[in-house]
């Protein structure tokens, strides 16, 4: 035997090595970005940014419970104190006034720069008179002691005004000086992490830090009461989801592999053949990863996980080869017989998956590229490499007996073709006229979170009275000053809308850090000392204030005229600094201000009014609506692409098979299988998601092999029995592999697994039912 014959093996091994080299240098990502659009609209872009990096996604909600109130409060203090030492967190809030002194000093020292009451009119004689009258009213009320503290330095009430504004934000109630859930014995803590929400490893570290800090706090806080920590929020979820998907994917993939292996071993009774049986699919997976890496630069974890299931049909190729090889003959003699059908099957699948390549979602495009590269590799290995390695001595045991029985069964089954046709039309009509939503259009439906977890999260959120993360206004400007000025413009519009009860409140970076322009304007509104004194004297006429009472005010107000403007470092170690840093951030070459909204009553009106605010690049984001719209776009696009994929398959089959009758015989069973499977899913109460759609695409890819083999065979041939046997075996492997996945609680695994398992078995049955009659034989042959 000459070495020259073995060049395919050399190419295969060389290719594998090259692919492995690429894979070793591949960057694997787990962030959501691959499953978000590549060329997003402004709203989508902001949504994606917020989901990837936003404040909304950096929050950890915590509750401490299971001990008496005093013990919980002590735990909350100790635990939060520890976390504040850690630089992984930008803010830890448990209701303690850790910044109270700094906060008050900051407000007091900068009251004329911060108060939006400060205008020229405010310091006119009439303005001062109004302010003094208001102060007198307050003095003659139960708030008198409060007013007295500030009266001589601040008769115009700037400090009270700032206090009122600060108090307006919703906060949980306090017991023993820390936040507690209303009517529940649970201390509340909120942490904000530094790590990017897409960095799940860092988030996992943060959660470990939290767990460790809590254990240490438990040990240091005395008493028999240990309490326990409950955590929730986006960070906890993303870590949990990753773990769960990883665990389920590993567990079920392993189970599926074991089942398929067991079936192949039981049939072939040879570890060597088993090894050859798995060779194409493994090679395909390796080539698929390398191809995606080369084409996209990075490979997404989901591509990795689900790509392998997409090329599951590659396991079938060697089965067809082995099972259809006649005793005493070599696989190389089998190949010319089955190759045209096999090739047609692969190309059909490629047509289907090829549609995914055009998706504007990088994730779907990656899955398409992976499948195509994987299937091409698998079929090439089956066609050129395995026959060489098997040698002449190969002899696969074949379950002929089963084939014989099935052959008879198929003869009977053909009678059902009209029934299947009628039922298919019924299924089509049912789907078209289905009363109710066929598709699940909520992004949340894709989340693997249990309802209990969602409820617990909502409960913590409500208890914390956290601003609902649902609505944001986002502004991008080239400079920091510009972003602050823009948020002031937006803030003014929001104030107007608050008065009309369109929303209850909002936060803005400029509340405690006004733009320089605004600060300068406020400074300039204060008159010189002499003028101020004269106006004050006039305003005080007839009022019971002691004449020299407001000397401190005259000094401080006139000093504020030349006061240094508030800079970023002035906000350090105040709660306002934390707010400003959270809401104002550098993004690429620009500055982004975020204004979270509270208590939104009329989102449509709000969207309309925000759109009219004269700030360029302003975006009003309704996160749930935007996410669902995004997902709907995603799903609709996938549906459209699948449709084109099916068209491509038809066109391809038309060109290859040439006769309409043959095309129909191949296509009808697949169409019937897709219709039956969809109807079955809907009837059993499932709303179809994108995962079911991918499952249906897979059904067509796998099923087309069945119908092509049936179509390509005349049932009078001797090989017909072998073909049936090989199809049943391949089908068994597919059902085992995907059926296992349907037991997963994770929507993506469950959806794909269930759809393909049902779809594959229906495809096989329908392919048999619609197959050609044996030459010259009657249908009802006993």
């Amino acid at each position: 035997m000459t070495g020259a014959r073995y060049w395919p093996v050399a190419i295969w091994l060389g290719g594998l090595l090259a692919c492995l080299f690429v894979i070793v240098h591949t960057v694997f990502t787990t962030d959501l970005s691959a499953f978000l659009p590549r060329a997003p609209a402004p709203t989508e872009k902001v949504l994606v940014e917020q989901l990837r990096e936003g404040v909304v996604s950096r929050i950890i909600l915590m509750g401490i419970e299971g001990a008496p109130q005093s013990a919980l409060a002590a735990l909350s203090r100790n635990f939060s104190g520890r976390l504040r030492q850690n630089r992984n967190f930008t803010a830890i809030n448990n209701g303690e006034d850790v910044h109270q002194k700094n906060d008050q000093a900051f407000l007091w020292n900068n009251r004329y720069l911060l108060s939006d009451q400060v205008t020229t009119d405010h310091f006119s004689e009439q303005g001062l008179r109004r302010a003094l009258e208001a102060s007198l009213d307050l003095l003659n009320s139960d708030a008198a002691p409060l007013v007295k503290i500030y009266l001589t330095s601040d008769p115009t009430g700037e400090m009270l005004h700032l206090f009122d504004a600060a108090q307006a934000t919703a906060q949980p109630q306090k017991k023993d000086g820390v936040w507690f859930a209303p009517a529940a014995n649970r201390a509340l803590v909120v942490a904000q992490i530094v790590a990017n929400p897409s960095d799940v490893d860092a988030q996992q570290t943060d959660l470990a830090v939290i767990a460790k800090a809590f254990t240490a706090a438990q040990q240091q806080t005395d008493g028999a009461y240990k309490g326990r920590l409950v955590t929730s929020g986006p960070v906890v979820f993303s870590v949990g989801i990753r773990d769960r998907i990883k665990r389920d994917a590993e567990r079920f993939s392993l189970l599926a592999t074991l089942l398929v292996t067991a079936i192949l071993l039981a049939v072939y009774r040879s570890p060597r053949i088993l090894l050859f049986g798995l060779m194409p699919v493994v090679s395909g997976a390796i080539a698929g990863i390398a191809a995606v890496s080369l084409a996209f630069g990075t490979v997404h974890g989901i591509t990795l996980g689900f790509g392998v299931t997409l090329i599951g049909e590659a396991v079938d190729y060697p089965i067809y080869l082995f099972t259809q090889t006649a005793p005493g003959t070599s696989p190389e003699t089998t190949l010319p017989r089955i190759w045209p059908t096999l090739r047609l099957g692969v190309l059909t699948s490629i047509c289907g998956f090829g549609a995914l390549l055009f998706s504007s979602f990088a994730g779907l495009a990656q899955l398409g590229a992976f499948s195509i590269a994987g299937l091409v590799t698998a079929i090439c290995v089956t066609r050129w490499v395995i026959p060489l390695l098997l040698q002449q001595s190969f002899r696969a045991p074949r379950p002929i007996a089963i084939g014989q029985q099935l052959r008879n069964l198929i003869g009977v089954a053909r009678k059902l073709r009209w029934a299947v046709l009628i039922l298919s039309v019924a299924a089509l009509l049912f789907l078209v006229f289905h009363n109710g939503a066929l598709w699940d259009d909520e992004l949340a439906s894709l989340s693997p979170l249990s309802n209990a977890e969602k409820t617990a999260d909502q409960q913590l959120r409500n208890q914390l009275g956290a601003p609902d993360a649902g609505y944001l206004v986002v502004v991008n400007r080239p400079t920091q000053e510009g972003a602050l000025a823009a948020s002031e413009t937006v803030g003014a519009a929001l104030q107007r809308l608050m008065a009309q009860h369109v929303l209850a409140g909002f936060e803005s970076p400029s509340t405690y850090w006004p733009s320089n322009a605004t600060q300068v304007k406020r400074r300039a509104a204060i008159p010189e000392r002499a003028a101020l004194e004269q106006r004050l004297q006039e305003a005080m006429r007839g009022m019971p204030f002691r004449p020299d009472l407001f000397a401190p005010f005259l000094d401080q107000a006139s000093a504020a005229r030349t006061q240094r403007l508030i800079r970023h470092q002035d906000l350090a170690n105040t709660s306002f600094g934390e707010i400003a840093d959270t809401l104002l951030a550098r993004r690429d070459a620009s500055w982004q201000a975020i204004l979270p909204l509270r208590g939104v009553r009329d989102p449509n009106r709000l969207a309309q009014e925000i759109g009219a605010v004269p700030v360029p690049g302003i975006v009003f984001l309704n996160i749930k609506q935007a996410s669902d719209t995004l997902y709907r776009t995603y799903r609709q696009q996938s549906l459209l692409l699948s449709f084109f994929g099916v068209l491509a398959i038809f066109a391809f089959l038309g060109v290859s098979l040439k006769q309409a009758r043959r095309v129909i015989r191949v296509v009808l069973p697949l169409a019937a299988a897709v219709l039956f499977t969809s109807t079955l899913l809907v009837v059993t109460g499932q709303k179809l998601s994108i995962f079911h759609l991918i499952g249906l695409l897979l059904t067509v890819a796998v099923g087309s092999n069945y119908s092509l083999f049936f179509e390509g065979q005349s049932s009078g041939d001797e090989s017909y029995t072998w073909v049936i046997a090989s199809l049943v075996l391949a089908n068994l492997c597919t059902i085992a592999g995907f059926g296992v996945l349907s037991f997963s609680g994770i929507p993506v695994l469950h959806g794909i697994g269930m759809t393909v398992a049902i779809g594959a078995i229906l495809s096989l049955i329908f392919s048999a039912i619609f197959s050609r009659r044996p030459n010259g034989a009657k249908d009802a042959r006993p």
Partner: protein
Amino acid sequence: MGRAAGMLLLCLELASLPARAQDSAGSWTLDQLMQGLSQNKGGTVNFSEDQYDAMLTRPLHSSGVLVYAAPNRLEKDTLLPKPQSVIIDGATLTMRQANGRSRTIRLQDYPQIGVLVETLRATLGGDLAGLKNANDVSLKGTADQWQLTLTPDDPALRKLVKEIRISGSHFALLSVEVLQAGGDRSMMTIAKVSP
């Protein structure tokens, strides 16, 4: 903190609601007074208040009605010179200012107000143990004319309120005087609503 002081005055004023109970003979003791006060289920009285403040050249005068419903609801409605009100109901306190601005706080958020409200409830409800829990309490005079003096235990609270003097006759409160740390004081006199 400042706000807490404001509430303090309020609470003391509310503490001055009259109790309607039967007199008892013999020497006048705290126990007797408290026992009598504990019979009070509520009612409405007029008040008239003067605040003496070093910042001002003359005292500020106000008047209105006080409403008490045992055990949790207390209301001070000032009618003159400008209408405003304060309502303590259960765990919340609501202030409506002369300018129409209204705000509600939770008493838990302000521990010192919490202490004052407890003192107030103890006085109105005749709970001597509760009263002594946060104050130094002394009683002098006779059943016909007595004076109850309360000094807060909490040093932080004493920086705002030095002493509270409540005078009365039998189980009716007649006046409440609050001495503030800076020398300022307020004097409230109480009269039954004229029929």
